Structure formats: structure tokens, C-alpha cells
């Protein structure tokens, strides 16, 4: 079998989206991924591909029958949900927006279950953004708060952060601080490790902001955080001295009690620090193209997740139009899921509703759903755009080809099939007239 070598291939095994890989493949499979970490190697080499192209009610079906059935389910639904989108290309995400709009559906992505609280924090008080390239070249103080990239983003430290050699900074010029509830693998590499008590991040971040601004703090309340005033004073001084600092926040901050208020405490601290130097606060996003989903929804609807089209225009309300809430309240009567991993993040109260309603799953494998369609996996045999952790778009360079459709193709064909059906309900604009 002839072998091919694909240079500068892009991996979406985690949000690092490394684009310096060299893939060796034959017609059927990739057998080597040079420069990839173990997680990346698994992403390229070990992801199973389904032999069946589609199923309806668990029985093998043709792609066109599956698309027709999916279109009918969504057409008949009163309150459909389009959900997931974290593992697909930006092009498919754009198609999902068009389909959700056509269906007057709710559109929510994995963002609501991962770093959505960072988006809320940005809406509360703004955010300062930058790129990983800037951090690599300039950062002299790098803080990980509730994050363990040594395990979750294996090449992050080496490519973009502490261990990277930038234009103006090397490891010797950088100070690395880790704040976490346990001494994680990342903490072992840090210059300073601060062990914080669980669920006291908001208090510690607020105390730090007060110290940075020279405000008074109540020291007794500080004891609850497990950190001493001296430790926080020392960190506050380092924050003020930094010329270019960054706080990478992880799920340890974003998913604990306080949720968006924790995120907001971090972004407020970052904003305050821009009075003395340049400072960023950036979430370490979960694997796939979740940053792309945010960018695509922002660009198409003005909102990053939890968007409802039932009035014919996009409305945004986390808690009301987000998957975990909608499903737990049983307000969804059909669901289209793009990338099944999103479902596995849902709490049981939401997941049980998915067992009661018709579901359509578009994924690289056949799944347990009313209609399941197997597509060509992005980056392996489907091309497209993926967004890096800092929302820089990069192109996939798939080494294989596939007879399977892409997620984008399937979503477009479902939308076209829905559009061919008669309007049985008043159009959104007609409903607006009635409401007026």
C-alpha cells in the first residue's frame, strides 16, 4: 500500500491544537504521529471508525433514509434542541446554527458545561484577550488556577508557556505559580505552589485584588482559604511587578461553587492588573473545537451558547436556554446531538430526558439513538477549521479520505430536507405580527 507523509498536521486531541505534527499513513489508516503526545497519538491512531453508515431505531439504514427520518423528527418537534458541537469543524458549527434557526430551535454547545462561566464573567465585567504566541514570547508570570495542564493539555507547557523559549523570555525569566486544592502534576513543576481549600477561590481571588489595589482586607476570613496573608501579599507583589502576566483558569475554578462569580473574580483581578502591566486571564478549554463553537455562535447570533430561535431571532439566556436546564425541566421534545461526548457531561437529571425523546446523533461512530449517522472524523478524513485555546483558527490537514459525509454535509442535508417540507406552523415573522 502506498504511504503518505503529511507535515504540519493539526491535532484537536486537546485545546492546544498542535499544528506541528507529522502523520504517516497508508490508504486505510494512520500508523505514526510524530511530535504528538500520548493523548494526540490516541486521537489520530486509536479512534474507532464505524463500519455502518447510519441506523434508524438501531437497525442499519441508508444515509438518505436516516437524513429524511432526522428531518421529519425535527420538523415535527415543537421544541427541538441542537446540542454538542464541541468535536466538529467550524464549518459544521455554522451549518448547525443555520439548521437551528430554520427549526426555531434552541442551540446550546458543550461550552455551557465547560467554560461557559468564563463567557458570563466576560459579560459581567469585560475581558482582556491575547494569543498563546504572545504568552510564549512575553509572559514573565504564569499562574495556573484550578488547572492541571500537565495532564489535560500535555504539550501546553512546552509549546506555549513556562517551558517554551520565546523571543523575549525563557524558562529562567518566568515565574510559574500553581493554585490548586492538591499538589497536581503541574504543581510539581511550579516555582510556587499554593494549596487552597476547596470552594474558597472567590475569597482568595477577591483578597488578592484588594491587596493589588492597596485596599484593606479582613484577615480572619482569609483563614478559610487555607492561605496566609504573607502568601497572598507575596503573590500580590509578584502580580504587580509582572510586565506580562497570565492566569490560566481550569475547571477547578470554573465548575466549583460560585461558578461564574469565581470566573468573574479572576477576570476582575486580571483587569485590575492592567493598571501596572499587561495581564490576561484565559480558560484552559476542553478538547476539540469548543472555542470554534463559541466563535461561530458569537459571529452568527451575537451570543456564545444557550441561544433560542423560537421567536425568529436569537435570544440568549443561560439557565433558561442551556441544555442541562432545558432537559432537566423536560422542555425539549427532540434533540439533535453533534458529537456524543457532550451528552456524557450532562447530569443524570438531564440525561434521563434524552432517553424519553427522539434523538438524532451525528458522530464518528454509530450511537444509541433514534437516528444515528456516522460521519468522517474531522482532522483524520475530513478537513475544516478548528480554533485553538486562544481562538486562533487553524486548518486540519487530514491524511485520509473517506466515503462518509462530513458533519457539515449531514447538517446541510437535514436543513435542506426540512426546508422542502410545507410550513405547517406560522412562520416566525408571522408569529411576531400576532404577538404585536
Amino acid at each position, binding site marked *: 500500500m502506498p504511504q503518505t507523509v503529511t507535515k504540519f498536521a493539526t491535532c484537536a*486531541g*486537546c485545546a492546544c491544537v498542535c499544528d506541528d505534527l507529522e502523520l504517516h499513513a497508508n490508504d486505510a489508516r494512520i500508523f505514526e504521529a510524530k511530535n504528538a*503526545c*500520548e*493523548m494526540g497519538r*490516541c*486521537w489520530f491512531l*486509536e*479512534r*474507532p471508525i464505524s463500519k455502518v453508515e447510519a441506523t434508524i431505531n438501531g437497525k442499519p439504514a441508508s444515509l438518505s433514509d436516516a437524513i429524511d427520518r432526522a428531518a421529519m423528527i425535527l420538523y415535527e418537534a415543537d421544541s427541538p434542541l441542537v446540542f454538542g458541537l464541541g468535536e466538529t469543524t467550524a464549518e459544521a458549527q455554522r451549518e448547525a446554527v443555520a439548521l437551528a434557526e430554520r427549526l426555531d430551535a434552541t442551540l*446550546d454547545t458543550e461550552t*455551557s*458545561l*465547560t467554560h*461557559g*462561566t468564563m463567557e*458570563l464573567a466576560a459579560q459581567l465585567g469585560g475581558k482582556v484577550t491575547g494569543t498563546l504566541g504572545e504568552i510564549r514570547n512575553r509572559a514573565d508570570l504564569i499562574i495556573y488556577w484550578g488547572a*492541571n495542564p500537565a*495532564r*489535560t493539555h*500535555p504539550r501546553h507547557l512546552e509549546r506555549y508557556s513556562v517551558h517554551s523559549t520565546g523571543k523575549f523570555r525563557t524558562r529562567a525569566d518566568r515565574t510559574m505559580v500553581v493554585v490548586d*486544592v*492538591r*499538589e497536581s502534576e503541574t504543581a510539581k513543576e511550579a516555582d510556587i505552589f499554593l*494549596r487552597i481549600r*476547596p*470552594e474558597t477561590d472567590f475569597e482568595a481571588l477577591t483578597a488578592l485584588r484588594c491587596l493589588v489595589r492597596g485596599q484593606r482586607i479582613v484577615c480572619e476570613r482569609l483563614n478559610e482559604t487555607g492561605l496566609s496573608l504573607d502568601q497572598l501579599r507575596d503573590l500580590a507583589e509578584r502580580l504587580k511587578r509582572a510586565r506580562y502576566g497570565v492566569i490560566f483558569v481550569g*475547571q*477547578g475554578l*470554573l*465548575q*466549583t*461553587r460560585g*461558578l*461564574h462569580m469565581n470566573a468573574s473574580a479572576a477576570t476582575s483581578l486580571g483587569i485590575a492588573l492592567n493598571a501596572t502591566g499587561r495581564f490576561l486571564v484565559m480558560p484552559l478549554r476542553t*478538547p476539540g473545537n469548543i472555542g470554534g463553537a463559541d466563535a461561530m455562535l458569537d459571529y452568527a447570533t451575537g451570543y456564545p*451558547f*444557550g441561544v433560542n430561535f423560537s421567536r425568529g431571532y436569537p435570544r440568549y439566556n*443561560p*439557565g*433558561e436556554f*442551556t*441544555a*442541562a*436546564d432545558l432537559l*432537566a425541566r423536560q422542555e425539549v421534545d427532540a434533540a439533535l446531538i453533534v458529537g456524543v*461526548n457532550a451528552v*456524557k*457531561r*450532562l*447530569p*443524570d*437529571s*438531564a*440525561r434521563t430526558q434524552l432517553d424519553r425523546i427522539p434523538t438524532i446523533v451525528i458522530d464518528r*461512530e454509530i450511537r444509541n439513538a433514534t437516528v444515528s449517522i456516522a460521519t468522517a472524523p474531522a482532522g483524520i478524513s475530513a478537513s475544516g477549521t478548528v480554533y485553538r485555546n486562544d481562538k486562533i483558527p487553524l486548518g486540519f490537514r487530514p491524511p485520509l479520505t473517506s466515503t462518509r459525509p462530513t458533519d457539515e454535509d449531514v447538517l446541510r442535508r437535514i436543513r435542506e430536507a426540512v426546508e422542502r417540507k410545507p410550513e405547517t406552523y406560522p412562520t416566525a415573522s408571522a408569529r411576531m405580527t400576532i404577538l404585536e
Partner: protein
Amino acid sequence: MSLPRLILMPIRTSKQGQQVNIGKDHDDYLTMTTTLTVHPDDLKERNIPNGARVIVRTDHGEAEFVCTEGKVPRGMAFVPYGPPTCKLMGGDTDGTGMPTSKGWEFDMEVVLNAE
């Protein structure tokens, strides 16, 4: 005197990251996501042998795990995210869309000692 409840911290690991690609229904993934790491003194205080099968109960649900001793802070238990931890999560998102998925207090009870 009853012992204070422990705090559950679901975490992500690179092994879990690799396994996600292979399949979340795979045996290795299930083993990983049902292994709870606890400080040895916390296990001793509760008379739970290393390797025991335990039922973990939060205010929202229960799930079965295997307990192992590990170098983790006292009062806390760590487990890779997965379907069992989702059973312990409350559905309430406080209007954010994100259920709190870390820091629940829990009790545990032995169901069967490992051989």
C-alpha cells in the same frame, strides 16, 4: 461522634483523555472513572479497607466506586470525570447553564471488600 463528610473532586487525567478517543463505553474507561482516590487516614477512620467497593452518596444521587489510598489531601476524594460522577451531580445550574461538578460533600459505605 460522626465523622465529617468528605469532599468529592472529579478531575481530568491524561489517561482519561486518551481513553475518551478509544471510547467511553470501553472497560478501561469505566475502571478509571470508578476509581476513587482517598487519603489513607480518611479510609482508616471510616474502617474502609484499601480496594473496597463503596457506594458514594451525595445529596443528589449515588454511584459505586472502588476506593484506593493515594497521596491526596485529607478530607477529599479524587476521581476522573465520567458517567458515575454525573450521577452524583445536581441538575441545578444557578442560572448559568453549568451544573456544579466539583466539591460535593458525600458519605460512603462499603458494599463488598475486594479480594
